[in-house]
């Protein structure tokens, strides 16, 4: 049995034809389960969640959500000592939850005011507030409290065969289509250095300023970042209960230390968390998924990282299966933004067999805008997606572009003409061919470059000599190859513009601009972050509006009939 076979018939009672048709709809391939609040298998409304409370003595929080300091677990201690503003918390906690919820929704309350109030709230109080909000109100809040004014998007660029040429070509296409960040991961981890190089080189071909990362175990990921082969990191997982942290041999302090290691080298990074992970691991300690996720959000804030990838991510099947779960996921994104963190809002990871359900989970966030609408739109066909599939993939590009045009919303992408895409894919493959040749890595043939130009999936590429590639990957690490070496190689081999783009990404590390909340680059390497592109939404007619050059860009689709000559399409 697999996930795309219908359920076995469990009843011999005759069903109507209509029921038979419904039974065969994709939505009935999805898994649904009853709530079990005692074990944390409940989205956000549980009698087992604590009641909000706070008490400060001598400038120190001594009671948090019904527990006194001697009863604190290490999450409570970390949050009390690092995430909550001691000076304002008692006053903030005295504000009625319904009043705070209204402030989040009301455009006349400024973002700054509601963020300032949020600094004094405990996890249980934050939950109490967002529980009052329906999904439209959550998105009203999101529109106002997301930190960067301009929305953006992020893509997965991976290969089922870990083929670095495929990754380079798909990265170039994703970059030119508008993604601001690209991430990869591996089937065979030892391939990582070559695939990370493919991603970085390809990403700088499509346009300047795309940021890349390679998701791996933490030590190698940090090493690649330190060397400048990648530009950011986001797979630093945190959890909402002490027991799950301990299971992973981690603590809030160890994660904060890792965060500071990245920051010390100017590398952009954010944490990852999401509803459902604690119950999935059997240690939810009887708390709702959203309560535990709010603890994670405050932990991220307390650790001083600029952002968080949440939106349930790899556990999306769990909240997706319980009542109100997707509303809880929307609420967790709102809370991340409200706590003044960059929010990569999920919408990655395969979530449902139903196209309608997939879209309805996505659309509210696409309309309100988030810092990254997807934390990984599959920039490859889903079968090549080594993050185990995404909610959207390359087959959805034209639908996405059409929704942007229909609703005049900016989801971070644009339609690109075929000739431009082919040119970029070809150039990325040639640039990587030159890099491999210069570094004495296993050759990339002209046949592989040709395949990369026109390919859809890994099936369309000649097979590589995997053992030779793995040997090459090892030598890249042993020789201590850095990003600067790659820049020099690109310059020497006639890809001066790609070298220039790559160098700019490395230079920004020194300036530290990427450490500002929600930082991305425009194609001209202008950093856009909460500090210079702050969200100023204050009701109709304000905030980010799609107009001017960007709107003209989004009006373009694959097929649009010319007004002047209806017998032709606009090219």
């Amino acid at each position: 049995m697999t996930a795309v076979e219908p359920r076995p018939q469990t009843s011999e009672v005759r069903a109507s034809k209509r029921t038979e048709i419904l039974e065969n709809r994709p939505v009935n391939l999805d898994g649904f389960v009853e709530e079990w609040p005692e074990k944390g298998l409940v989205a956000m409304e549980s009698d087992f969640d604590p009641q909000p409370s706070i008490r400060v003595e001598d400038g120190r929080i001594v009671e948090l959500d019904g527990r006194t300091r001697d009863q604190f677990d290490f999450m409570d201690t970390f949050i009390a000592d690092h995430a909550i503003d001691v000076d304002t918390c008692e006053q903030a906690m005295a504000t009625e939850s319904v009043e705070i919820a209204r402030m989040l929704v009301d455009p006349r309350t400024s973002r700054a005011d509601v963020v300032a109030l949020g600094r004094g709230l405990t996890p249980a109080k934050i939950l109490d507030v967002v529980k009052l909000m329906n999904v439209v109100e959550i998105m009203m809040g999101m529109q106002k409290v997301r930190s960067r004014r301009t929305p953006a998007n992020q893509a997965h660029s991976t290969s089922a065969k870990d083929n670095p040429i495929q990754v380079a070509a798909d990265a170039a296409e994703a970059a030119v289509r508008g993604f601001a960040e690209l991430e990869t991961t591996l089937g065979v981890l030892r391939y990582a250095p070559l695939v990370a190089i493919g991603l970085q080189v390809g990403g700088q071909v499509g346009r300047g300023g795309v940021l890349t990362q390679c998701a791996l175990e933490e030590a190698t990921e940090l090493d690649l970042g330190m060397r400048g082969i990648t530009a950011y990191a986001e797979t630093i997982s945190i959890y909402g209960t002490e027991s799950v942290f301990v299971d992973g041999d981690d603590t809030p302090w160890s994660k904060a230390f890792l965060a500071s290691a990245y920051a010390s080298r100017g590398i952009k990074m954010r944490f990852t968390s999401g509803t459902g992970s604690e119950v999935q691991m059997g240690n939810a300690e009887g708390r709702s998924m959203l309560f535990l996720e709010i603890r994670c959000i405050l932990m991220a804030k307390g650790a001083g990282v600029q952002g968080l990838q949440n939106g349930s991510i790899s556990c999306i099947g769990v909240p997706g299966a319980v009542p109100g779960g997707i509303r809880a996921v929307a609420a967790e994104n709102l809370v991340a933004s409200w706590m003044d963190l960059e929010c990569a809002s999920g919408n990655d990871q395969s979530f449902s067999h139903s196209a309608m359900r997939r879209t309805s989970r996505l659309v509210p966030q696409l309309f309100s805008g988030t810092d990254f609408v997807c934390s990984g739109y599959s920039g490859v066909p889903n079968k090549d997606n080594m993050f185990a599939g995404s909610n959207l993939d390359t087959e959805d590009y034209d639908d996405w572009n059409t929704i942007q045009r229909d609703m005049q919303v900016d989801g971070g992408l644009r339609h690109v003409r075929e000739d431009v895409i082919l040119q970029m894919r070809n150039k990325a493959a040639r640039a990587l061919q030159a890099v491999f040749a210069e570094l004495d890595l296993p050759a990339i043939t002209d046949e592989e470059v040709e395949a990369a130009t026109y390919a859809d999936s890994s099936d369309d590429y000649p097979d590589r000599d995997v053992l030779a590639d793995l040997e090459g990957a090892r030598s890249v690490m042993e020789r201590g190859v850095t990003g600067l070496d790659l820049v020099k190689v690109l310059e020497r081999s006639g890809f001066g513009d790609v070298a220039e783009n790559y160098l700019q990404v490395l230079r920004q590390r020194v300036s530290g601009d990427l450490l500002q909340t929600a930082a991305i680059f425009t194609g001209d390497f202008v950093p856009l972050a909460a500090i210079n592109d702050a969200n100023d939404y204050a009701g109709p007619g304000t905030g980010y509006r799609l107009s001017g050059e960007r709107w003209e860009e989004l009006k373009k689709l694959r097929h649009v009939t010319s007004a002047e000559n209806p017998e032709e399409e606009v090219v």
Partner: protein
Amino acid sequence: MTTATGIRTLTLREIGPAERGTRPEEVVIALSPAFGDPFTKTIVDVPHAEVIRQLLAGIEEQGGVARTIKVYRTADLAAIAHFGAKLSGSGIAVGILARGTTVVHQRDLARLSNLELFPQAPLLDAEVFRMIGANAAQYAQSRSPRPVPTRNDQMARPRWQAKAALLHLKEFECIDHARAAVEVEPVITRVD
């Protein structure tokens, strides 16, 4: 539900405390707290009787011998399998959770390392369990089998993730910290 004919049921008959084996070609099958009792089938309804039957057949085909133990103190698959491997005469064990997640372990490896891991329980059917048994027997004989081909299904998460969480929580409830592992004899009865 009607009672179909030809269904096999599994009973685990207790033999005594799980002890260290001495036969060099032995494979230990280490079962999780809910395996066989109270649960009777995997996440995709493969009967536990069938799982055991196929594992045993795979081991036997390769000239191996099997011993089955049931663990009560943990529902952590790595811990169950590694415990089994330490009791195995050959140092090889197959660990299996009630929902079907399976690992082939070896006593000299770190607990979170292993020989072969099958993390996606919904993709494991009778054929795969037989191959796992066969490979385990070959490892026990110091041979180097080709790893069982891994299957991947990107839609397994939306279909099965929550049920897996639920089954995991239920299995957690069957943990008995006070109860030591026991050796069991799997008795498979066919209902005709």
